[in-house]
């Protein structure tokens, strides 16, 4: 029995789609094939903006831009013979490319045998044969830059620490994943723990470290358990401990847990936390690569960075360097979320455009709303409005737009999201998470937040917009660590691109997207109101009264602008202004 899955749609194609399904079923019946195939409408096949889309099972062919004239051909070729109708096939030029996530969802993360079967620990074996200098050489060819945010070339970082004399050095994996809308590091730790361990061992070998430490946030218990299990099995297999794989290389790994402090993602604060102290950052220099954990030379690498290293050593730096673009090689994993149709982790080669990520992979925004911008880099990043979506992804290209690559959060914003509100969200996060050690971050952040709150309540002035910029610049220049230096970025970038929206708040006292509760008012359109009373039932302030005949009204004095009536009304009778 074959199945023809047809993707449902809400748009203007609804009727065409129904006609198509009906004719397909009819033609099957006419040919006496009713028992051989069945037409089913399904919610989602994952292909958008390509007309009528159908997937034929069990073959799995996806046909796009269908119309009724082609049904006969599909039945003859695919249903009866199992052959493809070439010109209807979805052009599956897969835009994704999985390096960091290569084994996630593919192998059993708790089985070292499965990891070894996909060439696991071969990169380490090669590294051991090459020796440290050649490993760093290989990393230089690869051009890998840190995936944790700053994008510092990994080979360079390693080379500095390698050059420093010392009997004891450390390599730490930064698994603190602080960006509050991103989870790629967690997926790698949980889905492919051995690749990260292998990367760490290669790094350890290159810099001359004998001790590795995983710093993982306690909120990720499964990641911790998987890494611990992987470490344990490595010891039993002679992959950790003394004389690894018969070489003279000795290496140990242990886990330390974070405890819910964003600032501990910053290198010097992370080190303090591993030392069992409050996670206060320290002034740099000295840099951790020179003087880090317990005063010893220390390299800190992000999870995704490390997962790439085992790949690079196995496949060679040159091969890796060919992926992506000049200056930004390889791939990047993004957590694509927000108002996008297909949320999820995507891994793409550098150099792909933002538009391809958001539309071709993500399927665009929901309900055909208008897309406004994407936000990358989380609380340290910025927004990128739609007119720049043809920019290729890379460290410098995103920075030029006033955002950053960051660790990989990519949030899609639509016309219902407000620029002021989103900056308030990110800044509020940084104020919550500021450790309070230095004044620019502690006081500057709080003052900026006070101003943003004022603006969102319609009490801001044009002068406030200037003040925001002034404080932001002071914070960028004078804060002790990356948290305070980058916290103003979301505000600055929204000011840059959405000044008109800020001005609407301070001059007209309006929130154009209707998000800032104090600036919107609700009323009911009596023409459209059917008197069903749903609005009155959900209203938490008892501000809505009426009857079926007289229709309903909102008492503005009681209304708290929560918007529940607006959300619940099926007849679009509630007006938001």
């Amino acid at each position: 029995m074959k199945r023809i899955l047809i993707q449902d749609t809400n748009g203007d194609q609804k009727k065409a789609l129904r006609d198509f399904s009906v004719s397909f079923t009819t033609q099957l019946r006419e040919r006496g094939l009713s028992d051989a195939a069945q037409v089913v409408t399904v919610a989602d096949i994952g292909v958008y903006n390509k007309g009528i889309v159908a997937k034929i099972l069990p073959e799995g062919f996806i046909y796009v831009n269908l119309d009724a004239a082609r049904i006969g051909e599909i039945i003859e070729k695919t249903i009866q013979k199992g052959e493809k109708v070439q010109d209807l096939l979805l052009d599956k030029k897969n835009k994704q490319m999985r390096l960091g996530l290569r084994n996630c969802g593919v192998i059993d993360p708790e089985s070292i045998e499965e990891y070894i079967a996909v060439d696991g620990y071969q990169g380490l074996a090669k590294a051991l044969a090459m020796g440290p200098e050649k490993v760093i050489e290989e990393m230089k060819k690869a051009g890998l830059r840190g995936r944790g945010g700053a994008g510092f070339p990994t080979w360079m970082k390693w080379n500095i620490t390698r050059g420093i004399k010392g009997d004891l050095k450390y390599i730490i994996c930064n698994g603190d994943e602080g960006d509050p809308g991103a989870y790629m590091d967690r997926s790698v730790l949980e889905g492919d723990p051995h690749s990260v361990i292998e990367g760490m061992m290669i790094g350890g070998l290159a810099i001359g470290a004998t001790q590795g430490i995983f710093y993982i946030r306690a909120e990720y218990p499964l990641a911790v358990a998987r890494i611990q299990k992987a470490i344990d099995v490595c010891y039993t297999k002679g992959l950790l401990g003394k004389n690894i794989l018969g070489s003279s290389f000795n290496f140990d790994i242990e886990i330390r847990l974070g405890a819910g402090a964003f600032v501990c993602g910053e290198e010097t604060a992370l080190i303090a936390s591993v030392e069992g102290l409050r996670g206060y950052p320290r002034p740099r220099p000295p840099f951790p690569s020179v003087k880090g954990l317990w005063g010893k030379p220390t390299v800190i690498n992000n999870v995704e960075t490390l997962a790439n290293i085992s790949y690079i050593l196995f496949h060679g730096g040159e091969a890796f360097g060919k992926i992506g673009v000049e200056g930004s090689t390889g791939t990047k994993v993004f957590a694509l979320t927000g108002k996008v149709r297909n949320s999820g982790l995507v891994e793409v080669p550098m150099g792909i455009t933002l538009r391809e990520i958001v539309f071709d992979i993500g399927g665009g925004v929901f309900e055909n709303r208008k897309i406004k911008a994407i936000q990358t880099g989380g609380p340290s990043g910025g927004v990128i409005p739609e007119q720049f979506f043809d920019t290729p992804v890379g460290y410098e290209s995103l920075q030029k737009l006033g955002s950053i690559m960051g660790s990989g959060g990519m949030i899609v914003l639509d016309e219902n999201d407000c620029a002021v509100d989103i900056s308030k969200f990110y800044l509020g996060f940084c104020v919550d998470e500021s450790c309070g050690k230095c004044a620019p971050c502690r006081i500057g952040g709080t003052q900026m937040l006070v101003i943003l709150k004022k603006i969102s309540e319609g009490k801001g002035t044009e002068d406030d917009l200037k003040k925001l910029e002034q404080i932001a610049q002071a914070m960028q220049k004078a804060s002790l660590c990356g948290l305070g230096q980058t916290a103003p970025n979301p505000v600055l970038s929204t000011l840059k691109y959405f000044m008109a929206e800020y001005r609407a708040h301070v001059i007209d006292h309006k929130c154009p997207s209707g998000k800032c509760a104090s600036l919107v008012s609700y009323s009911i359109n009596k023409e459209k109101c059917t008197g069903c009373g749903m609005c009155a039932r959900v209203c938490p302030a008892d501000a809505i009264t009426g009857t079926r005949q007289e229709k309903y009204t909102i008492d503005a004095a009681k209304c708290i602008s929560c918007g529940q009536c607006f959300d619940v009304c099926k007849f679009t009778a509630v007006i938001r202004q």
Partner: protein
Amino acid sequence: MVVENLVNDVKEVVTRWKDKEGNLIMILHDIQDRYGYVPREAALEVSRQSDSPLARIYEVLTFYNYFKLQPPGRFNISVCLGTACYLKGAPALIDEIRHLLHVEEGATTKDGIFHLQIVRCLGCCGLAPVITVDEKVYSAVKRADVAGIIAEHSKAVSKN
């Protein structure tokens, strides 16, 4: 709290970590895993056994959000306030919980049944907004669903 056990529990934890430098945070994690929070008695005992001043222990406990100083509720409601959940309406869910249970974030209801906490990104942004009650995950939650989620658990309590 049974004090004998506490002394032994702490001894076990402190012994496990005794050879590791910078072990205080890990010791406190183990204690919290055991009791669901870090009771003052336990902090005192850690101070005694590991020979570090109590101030040093509270310095750490109060810096890190993850450590709880109050016993958790019978059920722990976590509302995600990560970016995706925020954009998709998590603040309204928090409002609704506050309104229904008269509880502020980080606090427990008077009857000790529900504890409300705000967390940042549970790593399932595709299902936003997300609420968890202990291990159970509720996805794409709407304001109107909150009462039902709470009722589901209150009922479980009244049955026992």
